[in-house]
């Protein structure tokens, strides 16, 4: 039995991917749970409009953080600030009573805002006159309304990355990639031919999630389907491209899944899907801005819940677009490397059998 233990240790020591998983994963979880996993909202960004905007901005103290004051603007402007995700709360002055608008799609910030307003009113301080408070976009403050848009993203990541990487690795594993290389097929044919089925599957999955969400859970879809579709399309390019990239660095399906999981887990935990971005400690939050799912979440929630137009979402679209181009180009190049005879094939001679061998007589 001792011999088995020694042998296993020796094998594990050399399996870098499993080691990475065994070491990186606990560290990641620790970091996330330590710094990121929090539903506490520490500051609430506020925009103030109307003639008493300046007064209001002095009166509302922590946890409120007045980021914009616009004395010349009215309710419509304030609502747009919320719609475009610029602030979490808006105070509209100029009427008989000040009006407070809260963005219900930022679930935890909204709850925190309501609690803070109630506390201020109770303790005195805050606004002298009790304002009218309206929660926009998710008046019931239900979790499902904000989760379903996020789920759309998860579905696309799942199909895009995991399943695509499996499908392409399978070609490598069964040695048929080489056969494709000598058939009169263009690399683009092979690449697209492999990707399109997963593209369609992902689209169907997305339709199902949206359908069920809207029909059964009553999630609203207030914005432009075209904007949503464009966002989904770009996001899908990114995830499919990642899938192909993962497959091009994996020797078998086991490795592909490992790598896919390692890219999936940070996205689920840090993209704002579960824990709001603002709650994540700044030291860790920067990671989120490199994750594609973060941007798709913003698009999905913005469009579905707040009818956000494409303009304010430009950052997300640009990021996804650029990342998509980068990833798909990388994937195509690597793919073409397998299919075109020009250039060296790594791995040396032979398919599954022979290996590069030292000079000299064989045996």
């Amino acid at each position, binding site marked *: 039995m001792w011999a088995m233990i020694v042998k296993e240790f020796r094998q594990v020591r050399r399996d870098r991917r499993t080691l990475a998983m065994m070491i990186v994963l606990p560290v990641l979880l620790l970091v996330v749970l330590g710094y990121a996993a929090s539903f506490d909202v520490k500051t609430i960004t506020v925009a103030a409009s109307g003639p008493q905007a300046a007064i209001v901005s002095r009166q509302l103290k922590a946890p409120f953080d007045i980021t914009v004051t616009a004395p010349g603007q009215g309710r419509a402007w304030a609502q747009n600030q919320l719609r475009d995700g610029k602030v979490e709360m808006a105070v509209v002055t100029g009427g008989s009573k000040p009006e407070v608008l809260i963005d219900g799609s930022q679930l935890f910030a909204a709850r925190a805002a309501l609690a803070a307003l109630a506390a201020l009113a109770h303790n005195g301080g805050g606004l002298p006159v009790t304002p009218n408070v309206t929660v926009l976009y998710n008046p019931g403050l239900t979790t499902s309304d904000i989760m379903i848009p996020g789920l759309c993203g998860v579905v696309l990541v799942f199909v895009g990355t995991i399943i695509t990487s499996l499908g392409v690795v*399978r070609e490598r594993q*069964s*040695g*048929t990639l*080489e*056969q494709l*290389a*000598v*058939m*009169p*097929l263009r690399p683009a044919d092979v690449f697209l031919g492999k990707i399109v089925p997963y593209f369609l599957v992902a689209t169907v999955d997305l339709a199902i999630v949206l359908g069920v969400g809207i029909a059964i859970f009553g999630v609203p879809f207030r914005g432009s389907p075209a904007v949503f579709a464009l966002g989904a399309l770009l996001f899908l390019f990114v995830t499919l491209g990642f899938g192909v990239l993962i497959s091009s660095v994996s020797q078998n399906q086991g490795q592909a899944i490992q790598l896919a999981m390692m890219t999936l887990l940070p996205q689920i935990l840090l993209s704002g899907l579960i824990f709001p971005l603002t709650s994540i400690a700044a030291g860790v939050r920067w990671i989120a801005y490199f994750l594609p799912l973060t941007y798709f979440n913003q698009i999905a929630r913005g469009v579905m819940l707040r009818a956000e137009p494409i303009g304010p979402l430009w950052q997300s679209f640009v990021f996804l677009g650029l990342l998509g181009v980068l990833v798909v180009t990388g994937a195509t190049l690597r793919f073409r490397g397998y299919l075109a*005879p*020009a*250039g*060296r*094939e*790594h791995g*040396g*001679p*032979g*398919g*599954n*059998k*022979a*290996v*590069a*061998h*030292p*000079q*000299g*007589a*064989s*045996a």
Partner: protein
Amino acid sequence: MTGPAQWGASGIFVAYGKTVALADVSLSAPAGQVTAVVGGDGAGKTTLLRCLAGALAPDRGSVRRPPKERAGYLPASSGIYPDLTVTENLDFRATGYGMSRADARERAAAYLDRAGLAAAADRLAGQLSGGMRQKLAVIAAMLHQPELLVLDEPTTGVDPVSRSGLWWLIAHAAAQGCAVVLATTYLDDAERAASVLVLDAGIALASGTGEQIVAAMPGALREETARPADTTRAWRRGGRWRVWDPAGDAASVRPDLQDAVTVAALAAAAGQR
């Protein structure tokens, strides 16, 4: 048929990093003939065949091969999808090479039948035995009637019965005018081919017909019953020992192809010291 009568390769040199896979290897593959490339694992057979098939570009040297649509290739790992049925695999190959589905089905049916695979047409390729899968792979490679057929170790690990089925397919292809190049570690395969190229560690040790290679064997071969003291030029065969004398001419046994190939390997090894 268009194009030169002779396909082949000249002066091929391929290196992977520091490892030389092929050094100045040439091969000619005449139409209507079977050419065997013989050598052990690591000899460079797969690399040479990949150059011929167009899956790899050599560092130096030239390859004469038909365009992709007129060539067929069987890679070392069969190139068959295990999760498609026999028929589905052949359909994919047919459409990939631009054949009409009807034509392909007809030709495939004849081959499958002759190869004993007709009953397995709807079985998943991954569930076929090794020999049957190789037969399927060869049929898939020759379905579109290529001018050059490159087969990488189609018979390795295949039992003798399936092997004869494979050889029927190969003979049929050659009889139709195709140039067939196949890699093998079996010498009885080499004896069936019209001409042979012997590779060892990337170098061409011998080439020509079986008889030519035997005739060109240098030195003489003796047979001894006891193990000689120095076995660097001796090897066991059939319970006795064969001893090669590079400079001698006192032969006690007539060499065959196996002897000639072994001697060539010994000579090459000696030449490197």
